[in-house]
Structures are given as structure tokens and as C-alpha cells.
């Protein structure tokens, strides 16, 4: 840029220089030519004037003499000599003839007149030899020589003139250089003069006063010749007065003018160079400043401004440059802001993305931008600049990953399908930094560089599939075991399978017992009615607990009929039989419908405890705990439950299922006190319920504890044994039975159940709490 500026400056300088020099030279040449023409014209006029004066000096006698002399000299008898080549070299007369003419008076008069003319051109108009000493001429006359040429010779031989008379007939030192120079040689009378090529001569012969071109003599300087025709009375040209006039002063003047001109040109040359250099420097300085500013703008320094003081075009340019810098600066700031906004948007997106996203460069290094989820997936704080393959501890896998990544950067001729299939991370199980096992799916996409063909980076997206994978695994498991929909659902809701299966069995047993009862209705004994009533009651408790409210209601109605049946008349019993039969049919519909069962179980899924552990015992424990909590929530009371089953007690829990149902029904049907009531009796606000099964010496010991109101059949502070309970039978039944409890059937059922299991039972009531101890053999 500097170089081009230099070139520009050089060219500008040269242009200014040439213009200045050209103008100076042209002016000088014009001035010189004009001066030369003026000087020349003035001099010519002076020469002509002297010629005219010379002519006026000659009178008619002189002219007649000259004509006669010319005629004599050109007498053909004399004119025997050949034509001369140049100059007045041909002497036509002998010396005595010349002297004879010179000594004549008319000739002398003409000579004198010529001399007078010559000296008139000097300071003194008089011949110096006759002047007194004080009046001696101080300067030589300007007329070098004055002579008269005859024209008769010219008639015979064109271009040739004959000397008729000259101002001197002796050699004299005309230029006063103290010697006789060749050009001071005398013009002899009768000499023939070659006038070939003399300008102005032919015009003079035609009668005009003319001036010829100048000539330079060796010792006396420059001369010009004036030709003035001498005319007779008839106006005919009879001779020419020739005056050689000194032009030395004029030529000197012209020469000096020329020299001065050269000096002026040299001075102008030097001045032009300096002026051009200075001017271009002055003109280019603002340009230089602007050029430097432009360079800084190019280097993204938009704060640069060019100061201007002038009001010319350069100032406009500077203004435009400043405007450009400002707008570029603003644009740049705006762009930077926009980029910052975009970057923060992208960071936000990366932060919010659920997927893992990162980019890898051609060296396999992870770049610094990745989504926040990426860090969570790998359970690490930082991934930037880490080699992607080092995320995988399995060395073989890491090598495959490296080779796979390299494929994207080294090859562009592999189909997308093939790359997908070759992906070693398509679906992997990964143990992250926190030790958690993750099911991850990686996909790779090339991001092309600016040229659009080479791969700049690789976009890796990671989907954490862990939850879905677990679900899939579970479903696969269920499918592989070829379970029915019911089994699958049971498995999913984690209701202990034995409970459901026992429930179904219990229902089937109820139905067959019920049908049997109807058949033998007229011959029923009270014991079998009581046994059936207990069976119905147990089923009712279970049905209500599992949410089969419809069945529970039907069973409650059967209980009502069974209760009054033994005391009825035969007529009334027929009606009762019909009613029980009808209810049995209705309950069969409610029971046998498998779909109803499935939908009930589905209804229960929502309430199932998902956090339950895997073992059957803990699932049983969770089931009972949740049942206790469910009942407390329905009753609206605070409880402190405790359920604990000893290892290996699964069978016992199963055997006691309906017993536990009845115990809980007793507690919640009439054992509930309000918080105020409890406090007045000195009990904690929360109702304590404990169901604990421990291993005994032989078999298991079951303890049911509650600190509610207690059991209706047991007086405070007393203990009831199994035998006492069995004796009571249905005698203690109360009329005010609700769907929940009240008839005493619950306790009967418990007692008979324990008896049939060959276990033992003891109920103790003391200090506001009731404890039921049950022991069962192995």
C-alpha cells in the first residue's frame, strides 16, 4: 500500500513538474520569438531608412554618371572575363583604368556621399579625419560598408552585380581592431559580385527597398544587407545602393535573451521539482493519514477517526471514512451482541436439553460445548478436551470407537446405513462415574466445515434409555414366562399372588358351600349354618378389603338371613331360602366375572406400593401395612403401625390371612376413639397397631396389639382363652350389626380358625390396650 502510494506520489510529482516546466518553456519560447521578431523588424527598418537616406543623397548628375559608368564597364568589348563563382573576386579593370575613374570629380562626389552615409550611422556624421580632435568619433559607424552596384551586368548575367562605386578605394581598419581583416578588403571598381541566393535582391531590382538575411564575418561580427534601388527620372532602376549594416548589438541582445532563457528554464526546472515534491506531499498528507486509518479499520480498530480542518474533497473523503468507521463499529458491536445473545441461547438450550449432546473434533477430542445432561449421564464435572473414547473403560470398545470416529473424518464414501450399523455405541450398557448402570444410545452426525465437503466436527447425541430399558426388560420377562394377563397384572401391582389366589379359592368354596346349603335347606342343623355364616363373614372381610364392595354387600345380606333363619317358622324359611338363593346367584355373577376381577386389580394398581421389595415376605408385610394405613385414612385417625414378619413365616401369614382381616375389622369398627378421648385416658394421640410374627420354640408366635377401645366381648383387665371363646358361639351377638362388624361372628371365626389350625389363642385386655397372642405349630 505504501509502495502504491509512493507510485502515486511519484506520478503526481512528475505531472506537476512537467506542467510547470512546459508552461515556463512555452512562455519563454514565445517571448523570445516575439522579441526576436521585434528586434529584427526594428533593425530592418533602420537599414531601410539609411538606404532611403543614401538614395536621397544622390542627385540627377550622380545618377547619370553612375548609369554612364555602368554602361562603360559593361561594354561588351571589355567583358571578356568569365563569370565569377562567388564574391567580388573578378576584377574587370586594370589598375590604371580604376585610378582614372577614381580621379574624376563626379566619382569622388559619389564616394563622399557614400562615406557621409556610412559615418551618419555612427555617433558622428562626419568623416573622422576631417573632424577636430575633440569631436573624434567615439564609436564606430554601424554601416560597415556602403557601395553602389550596377545592374547592367545583371542584365547580361542574372545573379551577378558589378561594383560601380564603394565608400573606400583603399583598405581601412573599419572595426578599429588595429589591423586589416579579410572582410575589410576593398571593393574595386568594376568587380563582379556573385549575388546568387541573396534574399531581397530580386525585389530590390524590381524597385523595392529590401533587407537581406544576415551574415557573420570573422572579425567584425554580424551584418545584414540593405538593398535600395536608385531610380532615374523615368523611375527606372539604374543601380542598387547596398548597405552592410552591423547587427552585432541586436544579435548580442538576442543571444543574451536566449542565454537568460536557458537560465530561466534551468531555474524553473529546479523550482518545479521542489514545488511538485512539496505540493504532492502537501496534497497527499491527508491521504496518507486516511490510508493509515483505513489500515487500522482493517485491523478491526473502529475507534479511529481522521481529523479534518479543510473543507475540500479530501475532507469529504475523511468524513466518509469516519462515517464508515463508526457504522462498521456499530455494526460490529451489534453483531457481537447478537452473537453473544445467540451463544447464551444455545447455552440455555444445551442446559435444558434432556439429551446428552457433545461434539468431537478430528483428533477425537470432546469440544467445550455440550449439554448439561451430558455431564449427568457420565456423572462427571467436565468433559472438555477429553478424548471421547476414554469415556469407555473397555479397551476393545474404546478402540472401536476411535476407529469408528476416524471413519467420519477420513472417508466420505460410506452410506449412512452402513455407518449406523457400524456404530459400536448404538446401544450399550454403561457404568458411569457415580457407579450407576445406564442404558445409553449414541448417534453420530457429521458437521461439515465451511467448505461444505470436509467434516469439521462430529455431533454425538446420547439418549439415556435406562428407565425404558428396565420397563422393556420387565415386559420381556413377563412375555417369556408366558403368563396370562391376570398373572402379568398381579406381577405388576405386586399384590402377593397367594392372597389373590386364596381369595379366588375362598370365593369358589363359598359358592359350592352356599349351593350345598340351599339343597339341604329344610334339614339344616345349627352347626352347619354357623359354619357357613363364618365362611361368608371371612369372605366378606376379604372382599371389602380388596375393594369388592358389591360382593361384600351381598354377603352381608346373606349374613342377615342366616342370623334369623334358625329362629324362623317353616313358611318364613321358604322365603329366606329363596332370598339366599337369589343372593347366591347375584354373588356368583360378581365372583365368576374374571374381567371384573381384572378391573378391580387394575383399580388397585394405583394404590399399590411401588417401593415394595422383591421378597414375598416383604411384599406381604407391605400389603398389610398399606391395608392398615388405608383403613386409618378412611377412619380419619392418626396411627402408629408396626408390621413385622419373621423369616419363613410366609405360610403362617397365609394361614392367618382371614384372621388378621377380622382382627383389623374389630379394631377399626369399634376400637376407634377421638384424639381428645384418647388424651383424657392418658394415651398418645396416635393409635398403636402392631402385628408381629416371631419364631417360637416350636412354630410361630403371633402378637396382635392395639391400644384402642378394645374388644366388646372382653372386660377390661381380664384374659380370655380359646376354649372360652369357642363356648360363647353366636350367643353374644348384637342386633346392631353394621357391614363392618358387630355380630361377634368375627371373634367366632377367629377362634374356630385357630382351632382348625391346631393353634392356641389368648386375649388379654389391660391398661387400655388389647393383646391377642396366637401360637401356631410348624
Amino acid at each position, binding site marked *: 500500500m505504501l509502495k502504491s502510494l509512493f507510485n502515486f506520489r511519484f506520478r503526481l510529482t512528475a505531472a506537476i513538474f512537467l506542467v510547470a516546466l512546459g508552461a515556463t518553456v512555452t512562455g519563454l519560447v514565445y517571448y523570445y520569438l516575439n522579441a526576436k521578431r521585434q528586434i529584427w523588424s526594428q533593425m530592418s527598418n533602420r537599414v531601410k531608412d539609411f538606404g532611403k537616406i543614401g538614395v536621397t543623397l544622390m542627385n540627377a548628375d550622380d545618377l547619370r554618371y553612375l548609369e554612364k559608368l555602368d554602361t562603360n564597364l559593361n561594354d561588351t568589348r571589355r567583358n571578356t572575363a568569365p563569370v565569377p563563382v562567388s564574391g567580388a573576386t573578378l576584377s574587370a579593370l586594370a589598375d590604371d583604368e580604376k585610378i582614372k575613374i577614381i580621379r574624376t570629380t563626379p566619382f569622388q562626389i559619389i564616394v563622399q556621399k557614400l562615406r557621409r552615409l556610412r559615418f551618419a550611422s555612427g555617433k558622428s556624421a562626419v568623416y573622422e579625419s576631417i573632424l577636430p580632435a575633440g569631436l573624434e568619433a567615439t564609436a564606430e559607424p554601424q554601416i560597415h560598408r556602403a557601395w553602389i552596384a550596377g545592374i547592367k551586368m545583371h542584365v547580361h548575367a542574372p545573379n551577378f552585380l558589378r561594383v560601380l562605386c564603394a565608400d573606400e578605394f583603399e583598405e581601412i581598419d573599419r572595426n578599429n581592431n588595429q589591423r586589416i581583416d579579410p572582410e575589410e578588403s576593398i571593393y574595386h571598381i568594376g568587380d563582379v559580385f556573385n549575388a546568387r541566393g541573396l534574399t531581397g535582391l530580386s525585389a530590390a531590382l524590381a524597385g523595392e527597398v529590401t533587407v537581406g538575411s544576415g551574415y557573420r564575418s570573422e572579425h567584425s561580427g554580424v551584418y545584414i544587407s540593405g538593398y535600395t534601388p536608385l531610380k532615374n527620372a523615368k523611375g527606372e532602376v539604374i543601380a542598387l545602393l547596398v548597405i552592410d549594416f552591423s547587427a552585432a548589438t541586436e544579435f548580442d541582445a538576442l543571444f543574451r535573451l536566449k542565454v537568460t532563457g536557458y537560465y530561466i528554464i534551468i531555474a524553473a526546472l529546479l523550482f518545479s521539482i521542489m514545488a511538485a515534491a512539496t505540493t504532492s506531499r502537501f496534497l497527499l498528507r491527508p491521504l496518507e493519514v486516511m490510508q493509515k486509518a483505513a489500515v487500522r479499520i482493517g485491523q478491526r480498530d473502529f475507534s479511529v477517526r481522521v481529523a479534518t480542518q479543510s473543507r475540500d474533497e479530501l475532507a469529504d473523503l475523511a468524513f466518509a471514512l469516519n462515517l464508515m468507521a463508526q457504522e462498521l463499529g456499530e455494526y460490529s458491536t451489534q453483531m457481537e451482541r447478537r452473537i453473544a445473545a445467540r451463544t447464551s441461547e444455545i447455552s440455555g438450550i444445551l442446559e435444558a436439553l434432556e439429551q446428552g449432546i457433545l461434539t468431537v473434533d478430528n483428533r477425537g477430542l470432546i469440544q467445550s460445548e455440550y449439554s448439561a445432561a451430558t455431564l449427568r449421564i457420565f456423572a462427571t464435572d467436565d468433559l472438555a478436551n477429553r478424548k471421547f473414547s476414554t469415556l469407555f473403560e473397555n479397551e476393545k470398545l474404546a478402540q*472401536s470407537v476411535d*476407529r*469408528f470416529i476416524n*471413519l467420519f473424518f477420513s*472417508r466420505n*464414501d*460410506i*452410506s449412512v*446405513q*452402513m*455407518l449406523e*450399523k*457400524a*456404530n*459400536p455405541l*448404538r446401544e450399550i450398557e454403561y457404568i458411569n462415574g457415580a457407579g450407576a448402570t445406564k442404558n445409553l444410545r449414541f448417534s453420530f452426525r457429521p458437521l461439515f466445515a465451511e467448505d461444505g465437503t470436509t467434516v469439521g466436527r462430529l455431533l454425538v447425541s446420547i439418549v439415556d434409555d435406562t428407565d425404558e430399558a428396565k420397563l422393556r426388560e420387565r415386559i420381556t420377562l413377563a412375555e417369556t414366562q408366558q403368563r396370562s394377563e391376570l398373572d402379568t397384572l398381579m406381577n405388576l401391582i405386586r399384590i402377593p399372588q397367594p392372597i389373590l389366589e386364596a381369595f379366588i379359592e375362598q370365593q369358589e368354596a363359598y359358592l359350592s358351600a352356599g349351593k350345598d346349603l340351599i339343597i339341604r335347606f329344610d334339614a339344616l342343623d345349627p352347626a352347619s349354618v354357623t359354619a357357613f355364616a363364618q365362611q361368608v363373614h371371612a369372605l366378606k372381610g376379604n372382599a371389602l378389603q380388596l375393594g369388592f364392595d358389591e360382593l361384600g354387600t351381598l354377603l352381608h345380606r346373606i349374613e342377615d338371613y342366616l342370623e334369623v333363619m334358625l329362629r324362623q317358622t317353616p313358611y318364613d324359611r321358604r322365603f329366606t331360602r329363596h332370598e339366599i338363593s337369589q343372593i347366591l346367584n347375584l354373588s356368583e355373577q360378581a365372583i365368576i366375572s374374571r374381567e371384573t376381577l381384572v378391573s378391580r386389580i387394575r383399580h388397585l394398581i394405583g394404590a399399590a406400593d411401588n417401593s415394595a421389595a422383591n421378597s414375598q415376605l416383604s411384599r406381604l408385610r407391605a400389603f398389610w401395612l398399606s391395608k392398615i394405613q388405608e383403613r386409618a385414612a378412611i377412619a380419619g385417625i392418626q396411627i402408629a403401625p408396626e408390621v413385622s414378619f419373621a423369616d419363613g413365616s410366609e405360610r403362617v401369614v397365609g394361614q392367618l390371612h382371614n384372621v388378621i382381616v377380622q382382627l383389623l375389622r374389630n379394631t377399626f369398627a369399634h376400637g376407634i376413639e377421638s384424639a381428645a378421648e384418647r388424651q383424657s385416658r392418658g394415651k398418645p394421640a396416635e393409635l398403636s397397631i402392631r402385628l408381629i410374627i416371631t419364631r417360637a420354640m416350636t412354630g410361630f408366635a403371633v402378637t396382635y396389639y392395639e391400644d384402642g377401645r378394645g374388644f366388646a366381648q372382653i372386660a377390661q383387665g381380664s384374659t380370655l382363652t380359646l376354649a372360652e371363646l369357642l363356648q360363647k358361639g353366636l350367643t353374644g351377638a348384637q342386633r346392631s350389626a353394621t357391614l363392618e362388624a358387630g355380630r361377634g361372628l368375627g371373634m367366632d371365626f377367629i377362634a374356630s380358625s385357630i382351632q382348625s389350625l391346631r393353634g392356641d389363642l389368648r386375649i388379654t385386655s389391660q391398661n387400655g390396650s388389647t393383646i391377642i397372642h396366637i401360637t401356631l405349630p410348624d
Partner: protein
Amino acid sequence: MQILIVDDSELMRTIVEQVIRENLREAAAKIRFYHAANGKDAMDIFQAEPVSLVFLDWNMPVLDGVEFVREIRGSGNKVPIVMITSVTDSEKILQAAAAGVNSYVEKPIRGPQLWDQIAMFFRHAGF
């Protein structure tokens, strides 16, 4: 255009040729098909003819598919190679890609799927 189909099963070779013929219709007349039952035979054909597209099975007697590809690529030839195979292991497919295979069709092949995979090679060849 010369297409080389390499597979030890004659049925497979016929199916591949049929899929191409059906999809290209009249244009298929401009194609010469070469069949080879193993990598060695394929190599003989390959060296004798200016083949412009190769369909290749993986597991073959004498010289298997990937070995064949390595030899071809080793000699600097860049002919498009489509692998037709029942191999699905990503590690093996990665090996094939690294050896120089350009595309992959999974066995058992279905006409449209195969055609989707190879249509681009014909577009590239100006069909």
C-alpha cells in the same frame, strides 16, 4: 456399465440381478452382469473387466468378502462396493467399512430395501 455380483449362493446372485433389472427396466440392457461364487473368482473377473459396481457377500469359501475388498483397495481401485450380508455385529461392520466397503444391505434382502441402498450408485453413474 459392468456389475459384479459375488455370492456363493446362486439364488442370491439371481435375486440381486433381478432387483436391478426390474428397477432399471430398459436401461438394464446397457448393463453387463458378472457372477462369481467366491472372492478368488471375483478377483479374476475384476482384473479382466472394467467393473463399475460390486455386490459382495461376506462369508464365502476360498477368499472371503472383506479380504477381497482389502485386495481391491490395496491396489488403489475406488469402485463402489455394496456388502450384502447377514452379519449385524457392529464391530465386524466397522471392520468392513474401514477396509473400504461403501454400503451395507442386511440379509435377508427385500427388493425395495436393496434398491434404496444401491439407487444412488446408479444415479451417480448417470442412469
